[in-house]
């Protein structure tokens, strides 16, 4: 059945709690610019969605009016940086208990300044009950939306836009959650929504879905029957009871009927032959725990069985479960998964969703926002503002559970450009960007969490230094520190809070937190200075390269790329050197490099390849500003162009550490073009194309790239992909398989990682791969 929340349920009753003080810094943020509201009112929880604009500072780079000559002058930066206000769109979702409804509505009304919104989309079983209150308090007309339509719209949205949204539950594994990489094609799938009843819906496309069945035995049965049997009124308490019970005391098992013979017959004696079969007697007492457990098994098994029968009938193997029966409860996820595995013999996958509780609100919002075409955009989960998944064991993280029980947040940023798969991925459906799953690898997790903790001071210092004119920079930087520190602590307890934990997600979370406190680009000045210095050396570097013989030059170019890649402020080993020795330069970096043979060394194969015909078009993902891009990448690009290979140079859309951004790359290219005829003509003739990746991460997710880039790659028939840097080629994509030649190169600037890979600090990875014929 479709109804999700249970109205009139025993959780808290109808009395509204007005005494709560809402912390406006944390919840209901950006209300002043909010427009378009949607609300999903369940039996005990309300989910509110609103769309708002966020104004935040961005560092813009701009060429001086007379470029070229200035570069030659000492101490003159190659471009100017200005901090501007930018407005971006953000979706806010907030979940709170129904008891706070009135307080929340009052708060919204008081803070809603200049909205033109006239209606609020409402869904969920409780929408009717609170209709008058909402209309009175907010003076918005309540538009009721169909529950299942909202749910499915929401489900499609999160599956498309949130990486690691879906996960499997694996009992006895650590962690118990196995996140799924986003499948490029999410359809068709089965959605089993376990509210008070069960609805089974087959979703075939964005707009086409069909109710194919259901069952009346659902969450309401567990709650209602459970309340009758145990006199326990709250759903959560019933689950608590169930987790402590032994169902074998109440259920008739196969071994109860067969005695010990089940073993010789190959039957599993623990199978339940008859739920509550042992309670068919008037003269025995049964414990609440045992009855609750038996009830939980009965209902979960039944739902799992029906889901399998429907999945089989419709030939589907992906089944997503949602509804309040599932919502974050490990107990029910465990029993449902068991049942699905049992009845489908492993053929059907039971999948759960991180943001399951928000589906209705997201869907209702999307319904109301159709004229803004939200589905045309890509969205990204904002790690800084979102609460993340609750711990599976409440004892571990009591504060988090308590907080989440009151207010839980999800914020999603609208990305300016739609993101798609890199067309050159060998198998988009099995592509996993990240090399190490830190949820899985406890040792690596401990190392990296500590590493990020230790680096935090430096990041805070850098952030303050980047805004010398700002009076509140220190204060904001401190807030950033606290926020990121607490995220790291949360992740120590619940590595899976935001999906699979990876070095990438740790880096991205830090960027999100920096942005949150208006430190959009702490390295802008460092990058500016380094770009200026490197530009000055460009011509001498190319001159010396040009003086070399062909074969010598090829090695020198690769070494240059690698040496350039040493300049990484994200790596503590390097930033320590750079902080203490401002004179550390390109030549010093070259000396730091490992001698050949490198840790991974397919240079000979690469050289052999270069002796062959030129590549048609190379796609290069650049890493750092300064020496890396100017003295490492550009000479390499120049050589490719010289060979007759077209080059697409892809840089990040937004800032991350000292990574070169797209706008910086444009200026850098402009300066180089002024010095170098090869680059100059290539730019003019569109043989060298500068594009943005769509990302603001120090790592690289080839499944979420700017659509323009993907189009270009296809148009130009790119047949070589060069990925440089630790973040893009080691932390991510180290194992990525492409359907064309690829070159992954990086300097391992982290002793621990180097050791893991079997080498030492400043080991070199040079991985050239050609697809099998």
């Amino acid at each position: 059945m479709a109804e999700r929340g249970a109205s009139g349920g025993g959780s808290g009753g109808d009395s509204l709690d007005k005494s709560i003080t809402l912390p406006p810094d944390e919840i209901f943020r950006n209300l002043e610019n909010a427009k378009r509201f949607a609300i999903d009112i369940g039996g005990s929880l309300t989910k509110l969605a609103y769309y708002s604009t966020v104004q935040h500072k961005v560092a813009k780079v701009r060429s001086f009016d007379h470029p070229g000559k200035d570069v030659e002058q000492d101490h003159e930066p190659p471009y100017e940086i200005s901090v501007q206000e930018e407005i971006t769109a953000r979706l806010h979702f907030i979940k709170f208990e129904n008891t706070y409804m009135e307080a929340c509505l009052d708060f919204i009304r008081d803070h809603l300044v200049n909205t033109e919104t006239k209606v609020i989309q409402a869904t969920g079983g409780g929408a009717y009950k609170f209709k008058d209150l909402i209309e009175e308090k907010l003076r918005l007309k309540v538009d009721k939306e169909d529950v299942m339509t909202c749910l499915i719209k929401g489900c499609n949205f999160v599956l498309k836009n949130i990486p690691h949204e879906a996960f499997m539950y694996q009992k006895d594994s650590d962690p118990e959650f196995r996140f799924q990489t986003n499948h490029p094609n999410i359809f068709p799938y089965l959605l089993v929504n376990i509210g008070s009843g069960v609805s089974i819906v087959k979703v075939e496309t964005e707009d086409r879905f069909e109710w194919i069945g259901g069952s009346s035995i659902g969450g309401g049965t567990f709650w209602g029957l459970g309340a009758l049997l145990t006199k326990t009124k709250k759903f959560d308490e019933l689950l608590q009871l169930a987790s402590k019970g032994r169902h074998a005391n109440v259920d008739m098992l196969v071994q109860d009927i067969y005695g010990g013979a089940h073993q010789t017959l190959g039957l599993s004696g623990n199978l339940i032959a008859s739920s509550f079969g042992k309670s068919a007697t008037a003269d025995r007492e049964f414990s609440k725990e045992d009855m609750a457990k038996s009830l939980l098994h009965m209902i979960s098994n039944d739902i799992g069985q029906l889901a399998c029968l429907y999945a089989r009938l419709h030939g589907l193997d992906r089944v997503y479960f949602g509804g309040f029966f599932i919502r974050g409860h490990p107990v029910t996820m465990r029993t449902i998964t068991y049942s699905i595995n049992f009845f489908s013999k492993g053929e059907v996958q039971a999948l759960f969703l991180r943001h399951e509780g928000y589906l209705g609100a997201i869907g209702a919002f999307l319904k109301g926002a159709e004229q803004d075409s939200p589905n045309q955009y890509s969205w990204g989960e904002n790690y800084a503002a979102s609460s993340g998944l609750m711990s599976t064991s409440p004892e571990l993280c009591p504060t988090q559970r308590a907080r989440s029980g009151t207010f839980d947040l999800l914020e999603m940023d609208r990305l300016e450009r739609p993101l798609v798969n890199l067309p050159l991925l060998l198998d988009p459906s099995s592509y996993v960007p990240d090399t190490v799953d830190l949820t899985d690898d406890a040792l690596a997790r401990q190392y990296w969490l500590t590493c990020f903790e230790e680096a935090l001071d430096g990041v805070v210092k850098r952030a303050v230094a980047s805004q010398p004119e700002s009076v509140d920079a220190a204060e904001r930087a401190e807030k950033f520190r606290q926020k990121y520190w607490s995220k790291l602590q949360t992740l120590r307890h619940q590595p899976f809070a935001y999906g699979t934990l990876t070095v990438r997600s740790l880096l991205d979370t830090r960027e999100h937190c920096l942005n949150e406190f208006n430190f959009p680009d702490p390295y802008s000045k460092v990058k500016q200075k380094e770009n200026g210095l490197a530009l000055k050396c460009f011509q001498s570097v190319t001159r010396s390269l040009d003086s070399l013989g062909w074969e010598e030059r090829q090695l020198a170019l690769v070494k240059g790329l690698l040496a350039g890649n040493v300049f990484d402020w994200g790596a503590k080993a390097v930033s320590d050197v750079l902080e203490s020795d401002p004179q550390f330069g390109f030549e010093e970096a070259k000396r730091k490099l490992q001698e050949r043979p490198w840790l991974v060394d397919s240079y000979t194969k690469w050289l052999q390849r270069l002796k062959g015909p030129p590549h048609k078009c190379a796609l290069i993902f650049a890493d750092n500003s300064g020496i890396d891009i100017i003295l490492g990448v550009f000479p390499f690009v120049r050589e490719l162009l010289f060979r007759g290979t077209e080059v697409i140079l892809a840089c990040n859309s937004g800032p991350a550490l000292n990574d070169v951004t797209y706008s910086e790359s444009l200026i850098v290219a402009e300066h180089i073009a002024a010095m170098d005829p090869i680059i100059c003509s290539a730019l003019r003739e569109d043989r060298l194309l500068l594009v943005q990746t769509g990302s603001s991460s120090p790592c690289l997710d080839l499944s979420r790239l700017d659509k323009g880039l993907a189009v270009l790659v296809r148009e130009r028939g790119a047949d070589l992909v060069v990925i440089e840097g630790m973040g893009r080629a080691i932390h991510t994509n180290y194992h990525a398989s492409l359907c064309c030649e690829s070159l992954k190169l990086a300097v391992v600037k982290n002793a621990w990682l180097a050791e893991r890979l079997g080498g030492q600090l400043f080991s070199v990875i040079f991985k050239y791969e050609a697809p099998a014929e």
Partner: protein
Amino acid sequence: MGAGRLGAPMERQGRDAATSAAAGESVSVDAEARRREPLRRRASSAVPPGSGAAEGVRRERPGSLSGTASAARPRGEGLRKRRPLFPWFGLDIGGTLVKLVYFEPKDITAEEEKEEVESLKSIRKYLTSNVAYGSTGIRDVHLELKDLTLCGRKGNLHFIRFPTHDMPAFIQMGKDKNFSSLHTVFCATGGGSYKFEQDFLTIGDLQLRKLDELDCLIKGILYIDSVGFNGRSQCYYFENPADSEKCQKLPFDLKNPYPLLLVNIGSGVSILAVYSKDNYKRVTGTSLGGGTFFGLCCLLTGCSTFEEALEMASRGDSTKVDKLVRDIYGGDYERFGLPGWAVASSFGNMMSKEKREAASKEDLARATLITITNNIGSIARMCALNENINQVVFVGNFLRVNTIAMRLLAYALDYWSKGQLKALFSEHEGYFGAVGALLELLKIP
């Protein structure tokens, strides 16, 4: 209950029987029993191991009742050879109930009767002259199949049931009555044939021949359907099941039985797809069965018998307990084509304290019955669709005196399949396994 309850009226006879059986033993041991002799280590065995004469007689007529041949019988020697000794029982020991079928020969000649050993006679008299045994054993007199010919013998087939937890008493009775002296083979099926095998052997000195549950079930159904129900049809269906005024139970001719979805509702539920007499598979099963209905009713209402639970259910109103589609949507949920009367959430109203207080025990019993029945219907329907079968036969003791469940199954199957599926029922709903076991004893294919 203990031994006394089931066996009480039999006790004195039992002792007599034991004595006489012991006396008659030397002449009625069959070959099979002899073969098993060492295994059984029967201390009381009165059979002289080397008794050639007795042996010879037995070999000649292994199926005869006594050592002397009866020329008066017109039946063929071949048939007689195959025929086992009386008494003819088929036993199905389920999780909750034991089902026993007993063939009472009515063509016993005076001579035969004279030769009939005391214990055998007393069993026959005891079973056929009573309708209740102890306080829990019951003979379903209305199901008795009269003038049946089995293995060349004419007689009546009796249907008896008692709770599985009284199994120890039953075995004790067997011991007290010295069943073992009759050297009959006990053909038994159901999980209990495994569970109680050792008890039969050590306490009752009886060897069980364990038979596959599903084989027996299918054999039993096909056989019983073929012999009819004392001239009436065995199989039936309901017309207008939702309308108490117009609802009619009508005979159904199962002349094309295959393929057939067989839903056996005992304590739990087994669902089989039957393609021919020997070709079937177990499709699935569910633990939400008769045991669940009765178990939950006991917990919710304090009732103590299945009949009581059903009686309460017949007086209750499940809509007070269940949340219906119309309770949520005010009417039909048109988006999904769901009628307002459909149950959206079983026991869904019981989430509310006020409604919990307003619901009577009868309402709860009714809701339990509706919940379990609808669920079985739903799973059966899905299986029928997956297996591409359109006739579904529901059997098992959950359906005994349970018209509410049968009509609901009939209606639900018809409604949700838009008339594509037909729910069929059978008069001897719970006894097919036991019948199948009896057929095995008689080696009737």
